């Protein structure tokens, strides 16, 4: 199978989804109104509520939602062959993610730009809101732990990327200073920043930094995890203009450049997919495709994290309600394209099937390493960049994404601890330093608890991270569905994905529970049970909320 054919099929399907399905959803289901006064106009304050150009808004909605997860998930899931991953990414983007992200913006805009958490409280009930908080906490916990493991693995496997990755952070710090202290023009600074970043990537392979296998009784991997958390803790406490803002900007540029290079190289090289469409010969210990595929690929098909972005910042800046379709649905399409690129390079970026098999020796193997190595192969043969440089470029891209998510995640987790300090009247917990310490501690516990003392097995929790992410998406879909029921509009377009997600998530959790029990991994078994309880509560909440709304509607009909 040629990669270009698959690429064209995927892109055509997603374009069809955008032009046809999202149009139908916008007109018939959400019924967007171009004259509706959006919160950005109603509460305009120049701070949070600012009507923003839709292309700009799409730009940072997309860069906020696109991270390392749509790369890692699909690159792990191709172990079952390229076809299942491809179908789930494409159909998931069209019928799940697009409707979910777009719907989250719509629901928030129609409710004074409240966040999904607050909306769950208003629309569904106070109990659902508490579940929401717990699920968010679990998502953040897992995302931080798993991304620390991902970056540590990258640093160990690709020593050439160490200098550019940490150098990029320095570049961002300098950019922040130049813009805020020296008031230099952004255009000048971005050109200098991008040149500095690519110079670093260029010299990376000649100055590899290898972490020794053992450092004072700890494995090299474990040392990287500790360093990463130390970095993320400091970064999450710094003022945003100093590091977060310039780094996100540079990351955004990197994302577009990286996507362009990858797609360009695939088109020029037209590699053959060496992996089978459906892998009958999966390594021993690989769980069954159904239902695990649907939690292994969360971002890229549907992800609850997007609902937080959609309702947290995007909905406050929406200029016209009709822009929600472009920003939300097309944002999901952008992420689907990233996931599609990951699938293509992780299945076509190898010379032979045997090479591919050597990468995918067990479930959870391959992943981001397959993305980097496969991508480097495609870029090297497609546009002639040296393989080492291409690998460094992709490693930097993945590591910077994961790093951004980590410190944003840690910051959000700190807010949750501080909020708990407020609710339970614990003044000590409200201090930023202590709340950050608690957040880092809980993530480290998970990273090392799951993977043993060297933290190398941390990727075991990847599907578990997917389940929490899907639960979050489920809660958002529930809010949208209840709103639709109350408006007497068709609810199947959001209810069907919701039911599918809940069934797959609960099934995946049960299967994993058994695996963890058989492996004697009682720590993860405990985490699994916590998520499972949350999942069952979400499912019960869905049934009762929908039944209640329908009863209300029926009663109203009876009255009138």
């Amino acid at each position, binding site marked *: 199978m040629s990669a270009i054919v698959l690429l064209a099929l995927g892109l055509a399907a997603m374009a069809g989804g955008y032009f046809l399905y999202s149009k139908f959803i916008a007109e018939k289901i959400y019924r967007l109104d171009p004259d509706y006064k959006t919160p950005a106009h109603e509460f305009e304050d*120049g*701070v*949070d509520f*600012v009507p*923003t*150009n839709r*292309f*700009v*808004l799409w*730009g*940072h909605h997309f860069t*906020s939602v696109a991270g390392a997860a749509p790369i890692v998930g699909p690159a792990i899931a191709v172990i079952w062959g390229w076809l299942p991953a491809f179908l789930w990414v494409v159909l998931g983007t069209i019928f799940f993610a697009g409707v979910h992200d777009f719907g989250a913006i719509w629901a928030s805009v129609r409710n004074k730009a409240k966040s999904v958490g607050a909306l769950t409280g208003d629309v569904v009930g106070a109990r659902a809101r508490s579940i929401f908080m717990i699920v968010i906490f679990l998502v953040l916990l897992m995302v931080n732990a798993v991304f620390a493991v991902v970056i540590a693995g990258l640093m160990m496997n690709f020593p050439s990327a160490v200098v550019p990755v940490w150098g990029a952070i320095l570049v961002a710090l300098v950019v922040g200073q130049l*813009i805020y202290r020296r008031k230099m*023009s*952004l*255009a000048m600074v*971005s050109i200098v920043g991008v040149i500095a970043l690519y110079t670093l990537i260029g010299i990376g392979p000649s100055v590899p930094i290898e972490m020794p296998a053992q450092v004072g009784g700890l494995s090299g991997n474990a040392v990287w995890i500790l360093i990463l958390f130390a970095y993320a803790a400091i970064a999450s406490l710094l*003022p*945003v*203009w100093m590091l*977060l*803002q310039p780094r*996100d*900007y540079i990351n*955004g540029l990197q994302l577009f450049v990286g996507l362009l290079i990858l797609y360009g190289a695939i088109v020029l090289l037209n590699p053959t997919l060496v992996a089978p469409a459906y892998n009958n010969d999966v390594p021993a210990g690989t769980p069954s495709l159904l239902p695990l595929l649907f939690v292994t690929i969360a971002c890229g098909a549907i992800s609850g994290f997007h609902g937080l972005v959609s309702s947290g*910042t995007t909905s406050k*800046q929406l200029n016209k309600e009709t822009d929600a379709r472009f920003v939300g649905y097309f944002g999901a399409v952008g992420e689907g394209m990233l996931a599609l690129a990951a699938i293509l390079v992780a299945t076509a970026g190898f010379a032979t099937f045997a090479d591919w098999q050597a990468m995918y020796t067990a479930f959870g193997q391959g992943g981001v390493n397959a993305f980097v190595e496969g991508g480097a192969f495609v870029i090297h043969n497609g546009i002639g960049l040296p393989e080492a440089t291409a690998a460094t470029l992709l490693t930097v891209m993945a590591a910077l994404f994961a790093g951004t998510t980590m410190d944003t995640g840690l910051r959000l987790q700190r807010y949750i601890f501080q909020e708990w300090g407020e609710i339970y009247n614990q003044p000590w917990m409200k201090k930023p330093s202590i709340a950050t310490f608690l957040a880092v501690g809980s993530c480290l516990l998970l990273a090392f608890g799951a993977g043993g003392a060297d933290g190398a097995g941390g990727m075991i929790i990847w599907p578990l991270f997917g389940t929490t992410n899907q639960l979050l998406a489920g809660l958002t879909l529930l809010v949208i569905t209840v709103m639709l029921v109350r408006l007497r509009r068709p609810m199947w377009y959001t209810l069907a994905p919701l039911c599918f997600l809940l069934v797959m998530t609960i099934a995946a959790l049960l299967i994993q529970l058994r695996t963890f029990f058989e492996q004697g991994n009682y720590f993860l078994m405990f985490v699994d049970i916590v998520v499972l309880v949350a999942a069952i509560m979400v499912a019960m909440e869905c049934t009762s909320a929908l039944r209640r709304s329908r009863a209300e509607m029926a009663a109203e009909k009876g009255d009138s």
Partner: protein
Amino acid sequence: MHDDRDSGHDSRLERIRAWLSQARFFAEEVYSSRYRGAIARARRDEDDLFMLLVFSEMMGVPNPAAYYTLELQPLLLERFHDWHRRMGMEQSPLDHFKCC
């Protein structure tokens, strides 16, 4: 003839300039809009502290720099109402100075 070419050249230059300014606008929006809120809030927090320093004498908190901050009071009066509301005081905390 010469003029014609010149004006063509000018309009092209102008188009490039317009395009560049558009690009700059987009870049600046992308850079700042995501964090506008966080930065404005951080700045407001600093300003709030400054308000407290300026109006501290009036509320019975001694301020060694009162002599200098006194002349700032009229400049900050406009923000006084927002500030005391934000600090959780429904009415002006100063007996002799009511803004609402």
